[in-house]
């Protein structure tokens, strides 16, 4: 029997000697701060200290720690840990928080022997822990013990860099993610998945197989699904079965579920499940899609949808343009690579199915799960757990209908936790795109026309393909005046993984195409690249390609803020003199409409005060790390006129909280923020109406007593009896942004407001190895109003990290890279120094002027880096990511074509 010492206590472990330490710590010792992101040593989420040394608990059979002392984040028995927790909160170093325990334990190892480490020492110590949210800068700052960034609220909360209101649990290891909830003896659900990209299948004698195993409670297939075995985020296009029927359309599609006791189901070799596969021809690229066998018979040429925006006379204008730049660009499948694989727990609460799950869209989850399981929506209750990252892929159903079905059939709590491989096979991806475009400018360098045509590989099922196809043509001009325009984006089915939503819905891909051509044009026109962008940038009163007149556009302000940095960077690049490397500088911009494209997407916020004086905010915007819990509370606080710390938050539990829609499309700060502003103001009105005080009156909530003060007059508010929600006073307000549908030429008002930004990348390229290092990035983003500047900065740094990955290393190859060592995301050592500049040009539609930011931040990064590579070397890339061998080939090609 293995013995270990944890937090000073001796334990004898009953688990088998070869079991992963991570499992034993989590299950047998209930130390849930130990996270499992990969079971392969790649993510470091399971980092603990064994006899003071940091190790991956997932790689250690417990026999090897016999007699050892093990430290996790769970016990706050240590001054170093305590200090780190404060530092993480003060720097905004935890976003979703899933990587935080591992980061902290790695940092503890370092800080015990080196109390004042250098940046380099911190990076080496933390190198084994991946973070997908923060871009690492704030984590490194926190570990170095730099002076705190968070501020205290003064008279107002908005505009103040408050600590996250939900931060404590993230830094002390108590936050509960999808795999952390529910009873230890919940049944385990595992999926049998297709081993082919495309295959017909016949199920064998399942009953015989099941009865030969022990501990199995149910084996479920499509036959067992009581409702409509077909779901999708866009209901008219719903096409995805929860469990495949007769044919599997992508590698890893689930065809059956095995449900039983944890030990039994875990031990089963699913490759022996009785199913006969008949592999069929398949496609995985957009180039093959149109000629492939139809994935869905009602979609000719495998085209799911084509989005289109046309304005003016583009062909004519291109012909007359003095300069025309043309090109093609190809991008890869990109994996979200959140550190938390999909996980959840379902159980029956009498006749209601309760599902705890990490999600970005609880109400959509509820409705789709109800549909699949044949339940009324109010008989399904989604209780979101903390989400360890989402970035778009946790908008789609994953475990929800599967564990729901298992819970209904068995009547017992059922858990499912995707393995990393399973997560990477089953989850959606960023659409690969093959894009062709031409942009023309007149003799003075004013853009006169653009043609854009993109094929996007939408994979096996619709998911968010239609959103990509509509967003791309709307945005492909970039934030630049383009009077004549023709753009089409085709979402094409293949047997590749389903492409869905990923931070930017196709716009980051289109921006690479457009910004590459802008560098061509600037060169052709002989104009500085920043100046070229500035003279074409949208200004107030400009009309977009969809015919929308823009107001409060911060583009010029962003570009002007970058100017001094641009000049410095160009000079540094010029002066760089080293044997193998050249430096270059690139620039790119972004704009992005906040909210759903031309569709209603309301948010409702409820704020109540209970008879005993508790102030409660029903905050339905799922916080996946981006900070909605904090930002929405800040807005509500100022609108109501009470301090943020008086609010008690109730999250997006579908039985308790009104719908705030999904966390996507950079909509929560804007739309839920507007609802919060309205609800705060309405509650304030209700309160003030009980007085005859002016609107300038001050509210106070102390020890359960609500009072209003106006000058020297003070009045106590009688809270009275509760309403059906339990509140003596309550306000509930809804906001839905004003948009209009797009006509057949894509003309209309797709979004009520846009956010803008621009970034500069300074890169160093190795001319003979083709490797690229990004040294510095400067990012200027017009956020309208920075509700919480520290959180906004965190979004920028995290977005840049993902944009850097997109530019330089991330390429998901279906069937080959379903792990985090072949699929590479940036580590702490790959990040540049980042300077964030927040521009605040208020938008009249935004709450207190604020705009969304979450997706904008990654759009300019990749094109800025690629343009930097080109500036450094002359290499004009046509394919991302810019892996060393591609860069080297492009450098050689540039040499050959150089005059």
């Amino acid at each position, binding site marked *: 029997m293995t013995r270990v010492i944890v937090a000073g206590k001796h334990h004898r472990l009953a688990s088998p*000697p070869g079991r992963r330490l991570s499992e034993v710590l989590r299950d047998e010792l209930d130390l849930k701060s130990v996270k499992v992101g990969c079971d392969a*040593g790649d993510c470091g989420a399971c980092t603990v200290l064994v006899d003071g040394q940091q190790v991956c608990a997932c790689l250690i059979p417990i*026999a090897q720690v016999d007699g050892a002392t093990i430290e996790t984040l769970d016990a706050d028995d240590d001054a170093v840990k305590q200090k780190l927790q404060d530092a993480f909160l003060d720097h905004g170093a935890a976003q979703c928080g899933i990587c935080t325990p591992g980061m902290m334990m790695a940092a503890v190892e370092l800080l015990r022997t080196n109390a004042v480490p250098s940046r380099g020492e911190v990076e080496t110590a933390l190198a084994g822990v991946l973070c997908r949210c923060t871009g690492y800068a704030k984590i490194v700052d926190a570990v170095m013990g730099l002076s705190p960034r968070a501020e205290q609220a003064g008279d107002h909360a908005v505009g103040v860099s408050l600590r996250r209101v939900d931060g404590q649990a993230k830094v002390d290891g108590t936050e509960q993610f999808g795999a952390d909830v529910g009873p230890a003896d919940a049944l385990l659900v595992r999926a049998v998945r297709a081993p082919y990209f495309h295959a017909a299948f016949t199920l064998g004698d399942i009953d015989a197989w099941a009865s030969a195993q022990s501990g199995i409670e149910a084996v479920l297939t499509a036959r067992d699904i009581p409702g409509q075995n077909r779901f999708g985020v866009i209901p008219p296009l719903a096409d995805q079965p929860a469990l495949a029927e007769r044919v599997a359309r992508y590698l890893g599609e689930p065809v059956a579920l095995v449900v039983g006791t944890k030990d039994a189901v875990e031990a089963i070799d699913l490759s022996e499940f009785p199913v006969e596969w008949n592999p069929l021809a398949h496609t995985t690229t957009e180039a093959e899609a149109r000629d492939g066998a139809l994935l869905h018979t009602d979609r000719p040429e495998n085209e799911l949808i084509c989005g289109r925006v046309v304005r003016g006379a583009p062909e004519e204008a291109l012909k007359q343009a003095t300069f025309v730049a043309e090109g093609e660009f190809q991008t890869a499948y990109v994996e979200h690579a959140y550190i938390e694989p999909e996980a959840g727990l379902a159980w029956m609460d009498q006749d209601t199915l309760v599902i705890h799950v990490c999600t970005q869209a609880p109400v959509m989850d509820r409705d789709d799960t109800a549909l699949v399981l044949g339940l009324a929506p109010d008989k399904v209750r989604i209780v979101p757990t903390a989400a360890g990252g989402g970035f778009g892929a946790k908008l789609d159903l994953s475990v929800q209908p599967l564990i729901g079905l298992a819970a209904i059939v068995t009547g017992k709590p059922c858990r499912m936790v995707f393995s990393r491989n399973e997560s990477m096979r089953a989850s959606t991806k960023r659409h690969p795109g093959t894009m062709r475009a031409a942009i023309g400018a007149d003799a003075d360098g004013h853009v006169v026309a653009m043609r854009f045509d993109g094929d996007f590989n939408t994979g096996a099922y619709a998911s968010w393909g239609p959103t990509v196809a509509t967003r791309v043509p709307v945005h492909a001009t970039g934030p630049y005046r383009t009077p004549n325009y023709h753009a089409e984006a085709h979402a094409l089915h293949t047997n590749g993984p389903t492409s869905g939503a990923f931070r930017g819905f196709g716009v980051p891909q289109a921006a690479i195409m457009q910004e590459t051509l802008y560098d061509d044009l600037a060169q052709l026109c002989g104009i500085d690249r920043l100046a070229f962008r500035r003279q074409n940038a949208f200004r107030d009163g400009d009309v977009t390609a969809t015919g929308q007149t823009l107001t409060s556009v911060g583009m010029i302000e962003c570009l002007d803020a970058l100017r001094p940095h641009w000049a410095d960077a160009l000079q540094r690049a010029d002066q760089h003199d080293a044997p193998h490397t050249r430096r270059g500088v690139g620039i790119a911009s972004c704009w992005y409409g906040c909210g759903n494209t031309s569709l209603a997407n309301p948010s409702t916020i409820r704020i109540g005060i209970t008879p005993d004086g508790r102030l409660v905010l029903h905050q339905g915007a799922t916080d996946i790390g981006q900070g909605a819990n904090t930002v929405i509370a800040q807005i509500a606080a100022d609108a109501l006129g009470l301090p943020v710390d008086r609010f008690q938050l109730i999250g997006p539990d579908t039985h308790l909280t009104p719908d705030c829609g999904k966390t996507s499309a950079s909509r929560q700060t804007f739309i839920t923020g507007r609802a919060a502003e309205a609800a705060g103001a309405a509650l304030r009105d209700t309160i003030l109406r009980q007085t005859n005080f002016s609107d300038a009156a001050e509210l106070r909530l102390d020890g359960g007593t609500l009072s209003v003060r106006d000058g020297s007059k003070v009045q106590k508010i009688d809270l009275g009896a509760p309403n059906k929600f339990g509140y003596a006073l309550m306000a509930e307000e809804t906001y839905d942004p004003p948009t209009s549908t797009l006509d057949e030429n894509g003309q209309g008002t797709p979004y009520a407001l846009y956010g803008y930004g621009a970034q500069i990348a300074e890169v160093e390229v190795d001319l003979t190895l083709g490797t690229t290092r990004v040294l510095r990035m400067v990012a200027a983003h017009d956020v309208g109003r920075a509700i919480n500047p520290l959180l906004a900065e965190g979004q920028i740094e995290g977005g840049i990290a993902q944009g850097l990955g997109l530019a330089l*290393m991330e390429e998901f190859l279906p069937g080959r890279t379903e792990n985090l*060592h072949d699929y590479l995301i940036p580590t702490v050592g790959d990040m540049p120094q980042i300077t964030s500049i927040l521009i605040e040009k208020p938008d009249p539609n935004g709450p207190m002027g604020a705009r969304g930011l979450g997706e904008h931040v990654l759009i300019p990064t990749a094109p800025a880096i690629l343009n930097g590579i080109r500036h450094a070397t002359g290499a004009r890339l046509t394919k991302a990511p810019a892996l060393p061998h591609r860069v080297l080939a492009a450098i050689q090609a540039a040499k050959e074509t150089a005059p």
Partner: protein
Amino acid sequence: MGLQNGYFRPTSVDEALDHLAANDLTIAAGCTDLFPATEQKTLGGPVLDISGITALRGFRKNETGITIGATTTWSDLIAAPLPSAFGGLKLAAREVGARQIQNRGTLAGNLCNASPAADGVPPLLTLDAQVVLASKAGRRVMPLADFLIGPRQTARRADELLEGVHIPASALMGDGQFLKLGARKYLVISIAMVAARLVIADGVVAEAALAIGACGPVAARLPKAEAALVGQPMDPGLINASHLQGYLAPIDDMRADAAYRTTVATELVQRILGRFAESRSA
């Protein structure tokens, strides 16, 4: 610890060899290759866990050279005071994964796993490393180059334990270097890597050992390039692509294509030699 659920964790080599003679066992050391290869939560057995054999950890020096025990970790290597001929191996150790991996992963595991991209191999080749294979039947010593047969293939018999890696005294001279090329800074499998050990006397290369990895099924020494250096003043320009010809057999994979590997191989060799030129002039 004896047998429990098909899991052996002996404390002596003899005990381990007895188990190996009697059973078909998976040898487990740092498990940093074994666990990632499975999704199971428990190591598939039966397992012979050698991490409890204290005699196998660390360095032994005698007149024949230095022997590195099988369970010596990368972190042990980084921390150990070793002759500067080990410079390349130490640099490689610092670049294996990250600290978590270095703290558990062993040099012997790296060799037995026999990945073409194993970072430990090129520096060990430049150290003329020999592996010591022990079994009930006795011990045999063979050059590392013979031990590694192909991707994931070694000359180890199922009843043998790789007991240690021996560096002969003749290879303890000079300075070692290592250069790794990957698509990101940390936690990365090499696209290609090179190692060098040179003995330079009075500005002239007296002895040269060069090796390259991830450019063929197994890492290889580069004898033509070595010969071109010996007897000459240190100058990276002495090496060109022709010296590597015949020693590279790269493949296309997701990290890079074969053509790229062939191109950068020469460059990497020149660069690592450049480091010697630099350190001499410094």
